[in-house]
């Protein structure tokens, strides 16, 4: 699983085919950056359309690359099916995010075109993380992503909460980068290489893993660094504040894409580079998964702000995904892939509704502000319910299939208790998802919601999200198959 393909392991040198999606998207992003400064502010929406077109183009490249592994740049990138699947996920999340961005920007009167290139750059970073097979590439991808995200989190610069989110994210993100890097440095020192495949072969040749504390420390520190990025407890402290303060579409984006990217790199590094130490790291991940799920869910119960609640929920979801990761087998790992993709649909969908209901100045984001929403706007209410049910993992939504797969992986690998803790958490999580619905349907409206305006792009986002939640929920076969195949190459 996830092995470096033997037939192209020798391939060295430049190979642009291996980074084609990244190249295309970066070129488009740079072009947008330039276009942005030459057009008037009323025309900024065109940037959105252009970036959507760019994403579609990149997506086509990703799809056409399916099934062939391309390695390049002295084996520091490897675009295999695993990478391609994640790239698809990132592109989907960027696409959906851009669809809801325009309306938000107009509402908050911060209609600066830079947001589109920044989203694209962040996506490039994520894609690089997914296909990086060298710690250096992974680090670079991570930083391209993070630096873009710091700006995106603080994008609404007139809004104090957004400032605060950006700054917090920046400080803690940079802090965690330090740990990640130190881990990478120690791993490099212990094995003499930064290529993940070479690390693995070094370990398998030299054995005696535990007798090499440096390697172990390197691995642990890397795990800490990645845990920060995927918001796993106890390294999750930044998440709620950042998610609450960041501009809503960016929160949607952050909770989905970067998390998936973090998992992609986390998986790649740990499964490919440290298979010999699986016994060590799965213990660690076990604990992380339990903590993450529990902390996320329990704290989410008390939240009144819906963005903050979804932030904790996203922590919990990282915990579920860690369950699949802990299992480390084909089912669990495929579950991670599948889950991240379906999470993109359900979470961004939910945030699309939050963008709709919110008012200028990030107002109206309390759960109680949704009182009566479901009946005032039945279709939107239904969409939100579908997303929430999916988040809660109730069939027939994609979230259920995803959880089923993750927990199945854990059970197959013998982590039955982990799965049980997982489902109990899942049951507890139902409470706060339902609370939103309680307000939506079971409380009398305090507002008329007459200011709500669904822009066509936002409607498209909702449509795609609902489809992305229900279709894989009812007929998950082909997508699961894809996720399985992504691991085999």
């Amino acid at each position: 699983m996830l092995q470096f393909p033997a037939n192209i392991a020798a391939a060295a040198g430049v190979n642009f085919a291996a980074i084609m999606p990244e190249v295309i998207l970066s070129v488009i992003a740079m072009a947008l950056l330039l276009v942005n400064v030459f057009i008037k502010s009323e025309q900024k929406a065109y940037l959105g359309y252009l970036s959507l077109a760019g994403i579609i183009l990149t997506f086509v490249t990703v799809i056409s690359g399916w099934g062939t592994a391309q390695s390049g740049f002295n084996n520091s990138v490897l675009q295999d099916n695993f990478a391609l699947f994640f790239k698809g996920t990132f592109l989907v999340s960027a696409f959906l995010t851009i669809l809801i961005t325009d309306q938000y920007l107009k509402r908050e009167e911060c209609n600066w075109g830079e947001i589109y290139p920044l989203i694209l750059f962040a996506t490039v970073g994520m894609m690089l993380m997914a296909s990086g097979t060298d710690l250096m590439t992974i680090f670079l991808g991570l930083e391209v992503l993070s630096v873009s995200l710091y700006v995106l989190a603080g994008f609404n610069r007139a809004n104090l909460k957004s400032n605060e989110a950006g700054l917090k994210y920046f400080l803690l993100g940079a802090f965690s980068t330090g740990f990640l890097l130190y881990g990478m440095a120690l791993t490099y020192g212990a094995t003499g290489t930064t290529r993940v495949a070479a690390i693995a072969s070094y370990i398998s040749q030299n054995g005696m893993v535990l007798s090499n504390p440096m390697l172990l420390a390197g691995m642990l520190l890397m795990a800490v660094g990645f845990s920060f990025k995927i918001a796993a407890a106890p390294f999750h402290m930044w998440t709620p504040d950042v998610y609450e303060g960041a501009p809503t579409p960016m929160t949607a984006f952050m909770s989905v894409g970067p998390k998936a990217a973090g998992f992609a790199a986390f998986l790649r590094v740990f499964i490919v580079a440290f298979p010999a130490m699986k016994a060590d790291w799965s213990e660690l991940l076990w604990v992380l998964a339990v903590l993450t799920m529990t902390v996320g869910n329990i704290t989410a119960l008390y939240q009144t702000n819906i963005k903050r609640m979804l932030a904790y929920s996203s922590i919990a979801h990282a915990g579920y995904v860690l369950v699949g990761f802990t299992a480390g087998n084909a089912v669990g790992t495929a579950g991670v892939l599948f889950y991240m993709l379906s999470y993109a649909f359900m979470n961004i969908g939910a945030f699309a509704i939050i963008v709709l209901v919110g008012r200028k100045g990030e107002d109206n984001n309390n759960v109680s502000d949704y009182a009566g929403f479901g009946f005032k706007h039945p279709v939107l209410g239904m969409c939100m319910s579908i997303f929430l049910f999916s988040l809660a993992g109730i069939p027939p939504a994609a979230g259920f299939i995803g959880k089923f797969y993750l927990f199945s992986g854990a059970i197959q690998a013998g982590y039955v208790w982990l799965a049980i803790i997982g489902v109990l958490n899942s049951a507890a999580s139902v409470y706060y998802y339902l609370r939103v619905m309680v307000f939506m349907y079971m409380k009398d409206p305090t507002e008329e919601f007459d200011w709500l305006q669904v822009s066509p792009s936002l409607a498209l986002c909702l449509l795609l999200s609902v489809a992305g939640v229900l279709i894989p929920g009812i007929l998950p076969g082909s997508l699961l198959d894809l996720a399985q195949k992504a691991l085999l190459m």
Partner: protein
Amino acid sequence: MLSLHSYLILSAILFSIGAIGVLIRRNAIVIFMCVELMLNSVNLTFIAFSKYLGNMDGQIFVFFVMTVAAAEAAVGLALMIAFYKNRESIDVEDLNLMKW
């Protein structure tokens, strides 16, 4: 000459100072400087290993770390300015609008 261990110990100490600084200092800029200290201690580690292993990967890595640190610095300072403009402070104690 100095052995690899001395470099590693030095960088570990620097890294710890940086990490502790991040945790206990209150000024955002100082915190950021502590982060930079951490990154630079990592750079030291990389260089020491690179020299020890006779392998350039570590030095290349340092290039990228430096670049990234610069980009982070630029973005970070911009964020701090934006925050300062609205809040007249860069004390992290004032990053308190959102709490659970």
